[in-house]
């Protein structure tokens, strides 16, 4: 029995390489194709799309569909464009993400560093809330929002998302803080730091990766949500997703595909930016709890 000669080994290896890259490129193209179609067609006048070639580059380059989608397109009955709804989404997402992240961090801190009898039961219940389908809570939630006098407002929507997100954020932070050395908390206790001082001075500064993960996760989910938005918002507090649906499905007369494409990209842009800016930390943060040291 002799080992394969080095030249053959190298050849086999480079052949595998080529196959792997080829497969990866095919997949990448496959995933990027829809984005390409949206982008090219959002930059064409409507006539050009009607000619039928969705894949060709624009012959006559125009940004009009983008301006139209942003500020003049017909959404429902008003020709406002997506702008006010974009603002609604921002006003909904920012407080909801901030509140659920902060509360999740606090929960994770208590569940790992201030253990109390029954803490695991509490954690299990919070974990269960991650598995409750949106549809089940619609009617009770509507009732609660009515009682709180928040029905049909952006704040109400933010509250719904914050509450719904706490289960996930608690899970994230709890698992992250589980690996956080308890001796640090004890050292701080001996140094005289209070419950919140330990949280703010010792734990939070070391929580960068998991905060990034939680923010991305919450931001994407809340921004992309359609069901809560369509159920609980009124005409003036509709989030971007619902407005996009109204733009696409309720415009009378001619279907302006180029405007629809531009609107869809506008709706996806914030999550895209969040991913591009902090995607690196996302992967790193997800791994942080898994592998110690």
């Amino acid at each position, binding site marked *: 029995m002799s080992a394969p000669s080095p030249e053959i080994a190298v050849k086999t290896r480079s052949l595998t390489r080529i196959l792997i890259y080829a497969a990866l490129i095919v997949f990448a193209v496959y995933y990027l194709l829809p984005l390409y179609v949206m982008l090219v067609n959002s930059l064409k006048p409507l006539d050009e799309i009607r000619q039928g070639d969705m894949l060709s580059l624009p012959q006559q380059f125009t940004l009009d569909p983008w301006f139209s989608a942003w500020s003049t397109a017909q959404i429902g009955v008003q020709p406002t464009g997506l702008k006010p709804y974009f603002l609604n989404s921002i006003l909904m997402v920012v407080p909801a993400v901030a509140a659920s992240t902060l509360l999740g961090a606090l929960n994770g801190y208590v569940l790992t560093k201030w253990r109390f009898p029954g803490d695991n039961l509490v954690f299990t219940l919070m974990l269960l809330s991650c598995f409750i389908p949106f549809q089940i809570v619609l009617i009770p939630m509507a009732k609660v929002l009515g009682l709180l006098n928040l029905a049909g407002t952006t704040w109400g929507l933010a509250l719904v998302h914050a509450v719904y997100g706490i289960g996930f954020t608690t899970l994230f932070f709890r698992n992250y803080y589980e690996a956080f050395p308890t001796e640090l908390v*004890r*050292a701080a*206790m*001996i*140094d*005289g*730091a209070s419950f919140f001082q330990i949280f703010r*001075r010792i734990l939070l500064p070391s929580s960068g990766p998991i905060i990034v993960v939680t923010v991305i996760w919450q931001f994407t989910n809340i921004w992309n949500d359609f069901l809560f938005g369509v159920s609980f918002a009124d005409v003036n507090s509709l989030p971007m997703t619902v407005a996009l649906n109204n733009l696409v499905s309720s415009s009378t007369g001619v279907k302006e595909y180029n405007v629809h494409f531009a609107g869809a990209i506008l709706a996806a842009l914030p999550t895209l930016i969040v991913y591009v800016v902090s995607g690196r930390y996302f992967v790193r943060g997800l791994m942080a709890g898994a592998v110690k040291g």
Partner: protein
Amino acid sequence: MPFLEIRNLEKKFGNVDVLKGIDLAIEEGGFLVLVGPSGCGKSTLLNTIAGLETITKGEIHINGRKVNDLHPSERDIAMVFQSYALYPNMTVAQNIAFGMEIKGVPKPERDKAVNDVSETLQIKHLLDRKPSQLSGGQRQRVAMGRALVRRPLVFLFDEPLSNLDAKLRVDMRTEIKRLHQSMKTTIVYVTHDQIEAMTLASRIAVLKDGILQQFGTPAEIYNHPANMFVADFMGSPAMNLIPVSVERSGQSVRLSMPQRSGDPLTLALPDSAGKIAGHAGGNVIFGIRPEALTDPDGADRGSAGVVLSECQIEVVEPAGSDTFAVTHLGGKQVVARLRADARVAAGSRMKLAFNLDKAVFFDPGTQLRIA
């Protein structure tokens, strides 16, 4: 009046008794070492002194004040943790000053204290670094600095050297001892390393399964172990514990132990070993430290209790400063500590000197020392 006093301390985790009635007391400036195998409750005991664990029963007094229900920060203690527990997001200076910052000590005062402590520990050049940029030994110093700056009544050390490599550990051990000598603060120190316990302590408490086995000075613990566990745990190589039968022949008392081959080895006890005479006709455990079992030339000439006897040497282990010879007596492997240049060969027979003045005897049933 003792400076730190622990009375009948009990600690339960659920149904598990971790500490079963511990009584300890140490004078001001003393160095108390809690030693024992893992799971013996020594770290739990330290944590109860620190206030990081509640206690189920008993009392803890520091400087005449009962501290049972006080928060860790109010007990006037400082602790050095096994992992050092340096705050990773703060610089060395901020780490040391954190406690004062929480207390609201003004900045100039803080800076001065940090400066003084870092000078004592020679870490001045490290003040602006983060803990992740420090070596193990440097982290250790910073952790001690954070404890020193509090000027506490009692220092608590939780296995502070166990994360260092062997050489650094010896250096830091000396440093801790020097620091203790110059500051004269009371220290409670947890370790599983019996050499650390012997070298540092003014008092040693040996624990096993949550029970205090023996509490005494290092010399007491080493020379007069209370039971077979302490005898076996303290000292390296461990004390030889040989099952023997006690025989009376006329006026003298002899110990008899079977060898692997040939007649049993017998040792005539000197007159001083009177207590053991009462056990004639019975069996006892004969405890002799390796250094009390040596080659005839290396034996203590001042001792009247030296008895020579020929033994079969099975293994020879030269260790540089000493040579260890292993023989077989009473069904047990027995280690003798010979001079480094003793002439000995494995498989041969040689005369070994038993220093019976240093021997101790245990009851095989209760395992307690009888003489």
